[in-house]
């Protein structure tokens, strides 16, 4: 599997994601988001950070970066598109995922580890999870997910909600922590699985997430 990790000006989890992917034997490259061709990649990762300083709104400016056209193309073609934290914010701003992310209900940046429920264990990203809950790091100031009632009804009906918080840290509507697109190949979440893959750092709950992606992409089987 060939994966691109996009580097927007201000991204700061690009290397973390890159190292995590490498760790799973994925052929990953960090790609400058000013580049506009991503045809070579089976999966595209939008990492965490503060693209363009998160000025205006998180993800608002990044969605116009040249690479985003290529990301749309990849999404249309059914390739994997994964946005973590700031990457999730960019995907919603770009309209590749429904809804929007507001500032946390209790103001301020939170860095912690939180328990997530796996709401749908049959998505491309969770098919092989074999776990009902995960403990994953969060680190964000704007993770308060919002969608209007109509969108929410659809999200529930299509089983697009993948992860919810057990103890909602940011005010997200319906405790939503991660969702997929209608077609199921675009995924976004606020928590950071790439920060939880190395036993030395004390948490490996992110591993099943990457393993699941690898398996559904046919590499492990």
């Amino acid at each position, binding site marked *: 599997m060939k994966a691109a990790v996009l580097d927007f*000006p*201000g991204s*700061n*989890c690009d*290397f*973390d994601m890159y*190292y*995590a992917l490498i760790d799973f034997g994925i052929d990953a490259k960090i790609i400058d988001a000013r580049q506009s061709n991503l045809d070579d990649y089976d999966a595209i990762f939008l990492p*965490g*950070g*503060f693209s*363009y*300083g*998160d*000025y205006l709104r998180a993800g608002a400016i990044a969605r116009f970066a040249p690479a985003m056209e290529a990301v749309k193309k990849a999404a249309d073609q059914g390739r994997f598109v994964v946005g973590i934290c700031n990457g999730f914010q960019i995907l919603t701003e770009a309209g590749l995922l429904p809804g929007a992310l507001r500032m946390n209900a209790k103001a*301020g*940046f*939170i*860095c*912690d580890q939180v328990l997530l429920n796996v709401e749908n264990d049959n998505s491309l990203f969770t098919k092989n999870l074999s776990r009902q809950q995960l403990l994953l*790091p969060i*680190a964000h*100031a704007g993770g308060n997910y919002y969608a209007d009632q109509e969108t929410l009804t659809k999200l529930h009906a299509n089983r697009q909600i993948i992860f919810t918080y057990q103890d909602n840290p940011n005010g997200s509507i319906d405790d939503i922590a991660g969702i997929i697109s209608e077609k199921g190949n675009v995924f976004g979440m606020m928590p*950071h699985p*790439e*920060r939880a893959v*190395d036993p*030395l*750092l*004390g948490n490996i709950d992110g591993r099943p997430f990457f393993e699941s992606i690898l398996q559904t992409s046919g590499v492990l089987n």
Partner: protein
Amino acid sequence: MSIAANPQLKSAEEVKSERIYAQWGLTDQEFKIIENEMGRLPNYTETGLFSAMWSEHASYKKSKPILKTFWSKNERVLQGPGEGAGILDIGDGQAVVFKAESHNHPSQVEPYQGAATGVGGILRDIFSMGAQPIAVLDSLRFSEIKNEQTKSLIDGVIDGIAGYGNAIGIPTVGGDVAFDDAYEGNLLCNVMSIGLLDHQDTIKVGQAHGKDNSVIYVGAKTGRDGINGATFASTEFSSQEESQRSAVQVGDPFMEKLVMDATIKAVREMPEAVIAIQDMGAAGILSSSSEMGEKGGSGIWLDLDKVPVREKGMIPYELMLSESQERMLLVVAQGREKGVIDLYRDAGLDAVVIGKVTDDSRYRLSFQGETVADLDIKLLTKAPSYKLPSKLPVHIKKASQQQYQPKISNPLQIIMQILSQPTISSKKFFYRHFDSMVRTDTVVKPGGDAAVIRIRGTKKALSLTTDVNGRYVYLDPYRGGQMAIAEAARNVVSTGVLPIGITDCLNFGNPDNQEVYYESEQSVAGINNFAKQLNTPVVSGNVSLYNETDNRAIYPTPMIGMVGLIRDNRKITTINFKKNGDLIYLIGS
């Protein structure tokens, strides 16, 4: 020589007769030295340059005699005090770079931006040596939490550190915080940063060499922010004076991330082209350029018309002293400018040649086609230093004659009271706002005794902590200094790691007060004594004097930042009890 006469500015004669220099912090005697050494009167701009460079903040004129006593050499030391940051050898061609900075007064006046720009400044100190910053720690002191005002100061400082560090993507992994009314009206905000150099041969120091090499300005544009910041940091506070607010600077972590990544890339890709780098901190272009010139034994010529500006009509005095953030000064080999400039431009940054290195030991500025300053660079950068008188504080004399026996009637109640003290209780409320995990190298996160950061690709890890107890130092400066080191070392050792070096931030009151000077002298002597015994040289640091409000000094607070090294990261230990039935030992006396 023609020194341009700007009709709006005071003439050299007026600067002298109206004692303009005194408003800027120079004493009559210092002005006389300048006049004598120069053989003429300094003009308005030149006087401004001296006032900034001879301020305590830039020159350490009052603390130098004390700083000189620091023990800072052993087999690991690659760079001791005097540069942007200190450097220690950690084997395999790698080195660790670290330093601490205070941003006390700016944070008292404008907590968010003061703390944020403190983080920005210390990070620039690290990456200007060519190193990749890998962690930040913060050491904070506030008054007891009594009212909304203290709370909003605390919130502001915490949010400022978080706002900058989180955005730039360097984890804030530890620090310490305590509350005591001694810091009422004069909080302490010290930040420490640690960087990694993968190849010792790419170490960059701020020394301008080579006639006709170019001086290149990179980063944000210059505005009128923080003019007089250096002199501001060197005077006491009065709770009355609102005018001090002109020193507020706004940080832009997004811009700094671009500057940081581009600078590290320039050093790695063009090590021979980039001869020297220095960040523009207090007294901006002035101190960075003159210090680089002086340390390299060179002169500097700058063309101020080339400086990228944000505001119109800035005069040389303002251009030179502005403390606009996120700016760096590079010396680049003649003929190699384009490669370096292109690299920064590609990152979307300003990079402009603004001057040259000369071989005549002069510091010359040109503005609108005229020479506006022409000074001996050594005179400018070497303020006279003062050995001040000291005397045993009265409170110590008194205390030594008293006996105090705590009366304990209800131990349980007392334990509960102690645990509920903000200084003692968990600091999670603060550090949960900091991204302590970004870069995915944090092995031991905040909440333990010290933080531990692994060095990716090796089995090595670094342990980091900041400590000092101002009350101990107040009661016994010498032993208090020793105890600061001992506490830091205990914290590092608790993670299973061997301490290897120290940085410091010496926060004291007004040094002209003999008791305060005694505290500084004695506590540093104590630090020194213990640093030697532990073989942990003091390789960098920072001095913050005049920490007083309405003539009341803070507790003497020499903050110690300590770094430890472990070769096998499997041997790192953590604070929590591991399992039922394990034995508990008490070690020590």
